[in-house]
């Protein structure tokens, strides 16, 4: 046992919902999170106790791949149509950023670019790295990987920014024939991408980063 004991070594288990420290009376085998025979409930809040989030790798991979599949049409298809008397202008996420840069404010363009492009791409890369390295029980840069996960959790939901912009403009710009804004399918795919990446990062269990053969302490 090391100087920093882990819950499993002490036969303890933390409730994922209320944080209560419980004695793992069911033993490790039944609480390995494979969904078979997991029957111990938290005495305080009634949530199911599991040593690790159930099927973390599989679920996270599945959600991440689904999110990526949604992300392609989200970028290729236009997200918003601006129609006025004599022209129709369809915007994709990227062209929206470019337009904002040119006509409005470069600062805001950078923020929108970060929320709509950088954050989703960061999430795909970060979760991909976290999943592959943890599946191989790699001891590489554990502390940095743990930090990376927390950053992903923290910034994830800001991607919804563009969805809200399109929704607000749709409700605002309705001057009959003079000028109208309509949402286009891209924005639906983008909204789904954000929800799926959020679900993906929630289903990843950061404790898996520290599991494995070569403990570093």
């Amino acid at each position: 046992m090391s100087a920093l004991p882990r819950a499993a070594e002490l036969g303890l288990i933390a409730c994922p919902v209320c944080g209560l420290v419980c004695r793992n009376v069911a033993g490790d085998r039944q609480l390995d999170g494979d969904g078979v025979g997991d029957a111990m409930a938290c005495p305080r809040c009634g949530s199911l106790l599991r040593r690790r989030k159930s099927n973390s790798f599989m679920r996270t991979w599945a959600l991440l791949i689904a999110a990526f599949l949604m992300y392609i049409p989200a970028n290729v298809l236009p997200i918003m149509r601006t129609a006025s008397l004599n022209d129709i202008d369809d915007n994709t996420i990227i062209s929206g950023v470019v337009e904002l840069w040119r006509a409005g404010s470069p600062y805001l363009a950078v923020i929108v670019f970060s929320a709509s492009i950088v954050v989703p791409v960061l999430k795909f890369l970060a979760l991909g790295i976290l999943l592959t390295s943890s599946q191989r029980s790699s001891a590489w840069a554990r502390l940095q990987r743990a930090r990376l996960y927390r950053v992903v959790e923290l910034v994830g939901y800001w991607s919804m920014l563009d969805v809200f912009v399109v929704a607000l403009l749709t409700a605002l710009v309705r001057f009959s024939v003079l000028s109208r804004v309509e949402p286009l399918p891209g924005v639906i795919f983008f909204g789904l991408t954000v929800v799926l990446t959020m679900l993906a990062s929630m289903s990843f269990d950061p404790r898996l980063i520290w599991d494995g053969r070569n403990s570093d302490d």
Partner: protein
Amino acid sequence: MVPPEQGIGRTGMTSPNTLLICEHCDTVYRRRPLGRGEVARCARCHAELERHHLLSVNAMLALILTALIVFVQANMWPIVTLGLSGQFSGTTLWGVIIAMWREHAQVVSVLVAATLFFFPLMKMLMLGWLLVFARGGRRAPGFVRLMVILHYLGPWTMSEVFVLGALVAIVKAHVYFDVIANPGIYAYAALTFLITIFAGVDLRQLWDDIPEAGA
């Protein structure tokens, strides 16, 4: 699954206050009282374990009630109005939700309604209910169920993102239209401020602060 009432047959409960397990790496710590403004961090993964509660139950309740009032205003008042050659067009949050539904983006409409209206409202009402009883050192009826729901609602409220979105929409619209900021946008800004204050509060403290004995 054992319901909590039966679970108190000491299935595996240790003394809840002496130990603490890092959620991010499963390291076990012995709890110690924290000084004012102190934050306990995990020695292995550096994640935050626990922080000193600056806000009393009364202060939290005051904040929640303020947020609730501001939230009602943010939803009643129009957010922005655009003007184009004598015509004006404004919207409230529900105007946004309805417009997206009518424009065949129902998925987005539901997302907006959930993350900007229903979830924040549920969160505030549920917390307010729990805190009113917590003032008297009691657990509110439905305490356990509400605390579990609050845990899952956590990351799904996005009012602060919407404020930034409104700012971007205003700048975009400004190129073609006259933009008039309405009271709703200020109410939203105030709401974001209140959310930021509340962001540092770990609601799990309520489990320990109000022991079950009273219920």
